[in-house]
């Protein structure tokens, strides 16, 4: 099986804009809705998610091509990937704690949550199915993370204004109006699809 013929730059842009992991593929919506209430936390979580997805994409690519495929144990891939993700998150937590306590204070509470963020596992399953090569996997990983980061910051910014608005019907307050906002954002991002399209 060969890697798909996709340029690096189009792949990067597409993973941020047109195939945004959140707005087009619905991944990572849970933490997205709960965290986006607060702009600062969104910034921290976005950074952490981007780092974890990028690093996990690189490691999982290696695991997939040097361990899982040669041994023919594809049926175990879910468990192996989830262990890799949990391991990376744990290591990142320790490294950040050791070298940058201030960053650790900022990211600390979000790091363990990332293990069960569907965006991370989603990116890895996509790179397995689409058969990306190493460079493509890393670019796709960081691009998807950046797309998620962009989306959560935009939404957090919108929500700080939205929460002050009293015109929202009572039944739609909170999650309801947030979902509608995300829907409009998804429409805006789909508008880029004339520019680049990578599947």
């Amino acid at each position: 099986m060969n890697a798909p013929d996709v340029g690096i730059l189009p792949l990067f842009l597409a993973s941020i804009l047109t195939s945004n992991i959140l707005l087009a593929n619905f991944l990572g919506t849970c933490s997205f809705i709960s965290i986006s209430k607060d702009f600062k936390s969104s910034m921290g979580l976005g950074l952490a998610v981007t780092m974890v997805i990028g690093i996990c994409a690189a490691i999982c690519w290696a695991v997939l091509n040097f361990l899982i495929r040669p041994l023919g144990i594809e049926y175990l891939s879910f468990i192996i990937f989830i262990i890799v993700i949990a391991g990376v998150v744990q290591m990142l937590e320790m490294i950040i704690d050791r070298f940058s306590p201030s960053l650790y204070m900022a990211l600390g509470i979000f790091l363990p949550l990332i293990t069960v963020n569907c965006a991370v596992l989603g990116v890895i399953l996509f790179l397995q199915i689409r058969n990306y090569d190493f460079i493509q996997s890393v670019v796709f990983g960081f691009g998807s993370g950046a797309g998620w980061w962009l989306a959560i910051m935009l939404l957090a910014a919108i929500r700080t204004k939205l929460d002050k608005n009293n015109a929202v019907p009572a039944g739609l307050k909170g999650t309801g109006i947030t979902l509608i906002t995300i829907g409009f954002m998804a429409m805006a991002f789909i508008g880029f699809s004339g520019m680049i399209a990578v599947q």
Partner: protein
Amino acid sequence: MSPARKVFNEGLWSNNPIFVQVLGICSTLAVTNNLSNTLVMVLGVTFATAMGSFTLSLLKDLIPRKVRMIVQVLVISFYVIIVDILLKAYQPAISKQLGPYVGLIITNCILMGRAEAFAAANKPGLSFLDGIANGLGYGWVLISIAFVRELLGFGTLFGLKIFGDGFTPWTIMVMAPSAFFLVALALWIANIVKAKAEAAAKTPKPKAAVPAPAKQ
């Protein structure tokens, strides 16, 4: 109310995973533009939640607190792998269409949520029922959304043509934004019905305050 009935009432309505807990909308909205895919996905989630809660409830005294989360994830992935293998063997076409979303059941927050919130403190049998109730509570909402999306987006239901040739498909219904709009709409209706039921319960009339499920 017997414990089993209470569990079902909570899972299907009063503590519905989508309306109240706002969990698990991550991976599965993507498959709601097609009824048969949604049905398969819902069955997979229900199976994995029920069996996962059951197993974790059995193991709850054996798991050290520190590694609880990773054990939960591993048990859940075990059942998701079973779902994936069954699908690949018996429904290869649907398995191909669902792509990564079967594997993503692992990170569906409902599974972890129930394991943490219910199975960690209840008996295995009841945890199993709780898993089924939550899977179905999640299922009926998703199936109603998929019903609207497939009907308006393709003019079909389970792949069968419903409208005549004069029907123009609503392309937006097939695309991602409509899923967000429809979940918000469903949430809105559920909130209105709930508010009405609460108001009715406050009035002295001895009327049963069990709300009917919201119509999509």
